[in-house]
């Protein structure tokens, strides 16, 4: 363990030497100190009870992004969304790819750029917001990310601007000379009454053993509305830890769709803070696991003011010896009367050896609230299976079809055709008899 921390320490020193006079150096240092002090969480920590990160902690990764890794048009085409015109930011192994990004032709005052250039050119506003909405004591992974910020997306939508084109951020991880970690850091600022759609798409196809440790901070000012899609399709050997932190003002609306399909060991954190009346967050999630995958979705919503709303709906399909975790906590603070909180987690276990730990939690300190939560774990419905088979559908196809239908209950909430199509294809392609299922849906 000691030499592992020393490796992070050596990489950190190297990074600090590169950025010697960086205004952010102090912030990095204090974040790294926190990481060094706390180390990786263990399962004794209540927040990590069901997810053992030893496989990550045991590995030595290189933490300095190399900008010489290439991709090609074929790969880019396969990861982009067919028929969807986007503003594109592309990162390859953590480093910004100017070649494949397209941030030209953007509305005058809208800012979409990579974090490395923002750290140099947008100091004043970053000083105000970067690493401000994250609670560094919450997770040492977030501290590690802050210490190693090299690149990511910086998006600033000014007041009253509705940006129609989705902003699509693609993070590609590719075979490299050794094990590597990337620490993508994204900052999204939504001005008053602004509107945007942002996609974070994490992709890796090679057999590489890499570690993605991403953090996204969002600030939504009054009346703004953000649709956020996170699609995690890392390689089968990848580790993926991601945190999404939201801070919402009056009458703002955040819509989060989190889809986890890839990765060996995955943890998605969402920390939502409803800071003013009328703020609303919708959190939809879907995870699909097989073999020995482990996917943990961990959410926390703080209702700090009256008349705030949160709606969570997560679904999972687990197969093989895979394991899923859903741990969602809703905290209703004492002055937060007349809030609405809904939380649901439904799971489909397709094999005897798959496992789900689901733990929806409510902590309520106000007395006039409307809160509901529930969790279900089940298998495919026998009556549905029989009905389909009695209509000449093969048993395996019927199973895949019903599995798909279960997933689609979440996918169709996405309300975004190009993304739905891509995800539906992705899900179908991972089911047995995938070519046959397409006839029925």
């Amino acid at each position: 363990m000691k030499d592992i921390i020393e490796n992070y320490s050596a990489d950190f020193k190297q990074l600090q030497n590169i950025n010697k006079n960086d205004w952010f150096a102090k912030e990095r240092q204090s974040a790294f100190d926190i990481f060094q002090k706390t180390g990786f969480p263990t399962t004794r920590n209540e927040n990590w009870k069901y997810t053992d990160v030893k496989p990550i902690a045991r590995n030595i990764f290189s933490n300095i992004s190399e900008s010489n890794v290439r991709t090609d048009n074929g790969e880019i085409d396969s990861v982009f969304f067919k028929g969807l015109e986007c503003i594109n930011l592309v990162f390859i192994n953590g480093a910004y790819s100017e070649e494949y990004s397209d941030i030209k032709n953007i509305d005058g005052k809208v800012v979409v750029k990579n974090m490395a250039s923002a750290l140099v050119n947008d100091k004043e506003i970053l000083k105000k917001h970067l690493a401000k909405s994250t609670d560094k004591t919450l997770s040492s992974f977030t501290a590690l990310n802050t210490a190693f910020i090299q690149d990511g997306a910086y998006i600033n939508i000014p007041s009253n601007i509705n940006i129609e084109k989705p902003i699509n951020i693609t993070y590609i991880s590719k075979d490299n000379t050794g094990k590597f970690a990337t620490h993508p850091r994204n900052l999204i600022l939504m001005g008053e009454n602004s509107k945007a759609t942002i996609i974070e798409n994490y992709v890796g196809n090679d057999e590489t053993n890499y570690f993605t440790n991403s953090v996204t901070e969002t600030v939504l000012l009054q009346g703004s509305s953000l649709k956020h899609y996170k699609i995690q399709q890392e390689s089968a050997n990848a580790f993926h830890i991601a945190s999404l932190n939201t801070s919402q003002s009056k009458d703002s609306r955040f819509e989060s769709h989190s889809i986890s399909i890839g990765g060996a060991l995955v943890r998605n954190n969402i920390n939502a803070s409803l800071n003013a009346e009328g703020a609303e967050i919708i959190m939809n999630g879907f995870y699909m696991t097989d073999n020995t995958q482990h996917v943990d979705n961990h959410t926390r919503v703080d209702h700090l003011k009256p008349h705030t709303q949160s709606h969570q709906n997560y679904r999972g399909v687990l197969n093989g010896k895979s394991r899923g975790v859903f741990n969602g906590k809703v905290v209703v603070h004492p002055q937060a009367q007349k809030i609405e909180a809904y939380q649901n987690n439904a799971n489909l276990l397709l094999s005897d050896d798959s496992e789900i730990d689901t733990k929806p939690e409510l902590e309520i300190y106000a007395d006039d609230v409307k809160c509901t939560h529930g969790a279900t774990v089940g298998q495919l419905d026998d009556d549905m299976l029989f009905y389909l088979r009695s209509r000449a559908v093969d048993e395996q196809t019927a199973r895949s079809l019903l599995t798909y239908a279960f997933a689609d209950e979440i996918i169709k909430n996405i309300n975004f055709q190009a993304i739905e199509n891509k995800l539906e294809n992705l899900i179908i392609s991972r089911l047995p008899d995938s070519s046959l299922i397409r006839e029925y849906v």
Partner: protein
Amino acid sequence: MLNIKDLYTAVENKKILEGLSLNVKAGEVHAIMGPNGSGKSTLANILAGKDGYQVTKGSVLYEDKNLLELSPEERARKGVFLAFQYPVEIPGVNNIYLLKAALNAIRKHKGEPELDAMEFMSLVKEKMKLVQMNEDLLTRSVNEGFSGGEKKRNEVFQMAILEPKLAILDETDSGLDIDALRIVAEGVNSLRNKERAFILVTHYQRLLNYIKPDYVHVLGKGKIIKSGGPELALELEEKGYDWIN
């Protein structure tokens, strides 16, 4: 076409059918009547291949082959159709796509060419009139949000498209108002022909006012206790099931 001989079945060791025999020839319509719990639905489910029933004795031959060793999907392809008593809702599976795939699986089995989308849709339009199906229902998920009557009509509509050799209707009349009952019955009547056999499982005589059976059988305690012509149903209506016991 169908030959059931001395059939004994159980569910979790509870005996349900106890020595049932029935012979159905092509072109015939058989009504199976009987009080609740007499095993009517069990018979329908066993013929369609539902899991969970143990056959402890006896045999079922369909076109001279052992029906019981076939999977439900194989039976469907060979022309067995069950109209369900409680058609299940299947969100996410498209009603019309399911039907098209089912029809093409059956046609493929028969060695007939598959229908393309255009051919299929013109067939759908034609058959929809038969049961006065609302077009909106076609593109929905299977049975999702259908009323009880719409579900039953959808079953008969599916039957009209799939043109089975042996159609088993499990209490298709239950839960239908008189207009819907007439529509469903007319749909069934229009499908009657020399090659097709029907088994109508029903609790009430009412359905048989509209679909005239060739034979009526009364099921009691797991076997057929009385058989006769259509007049038997009227007698049952008048005297009740106790009369036979």
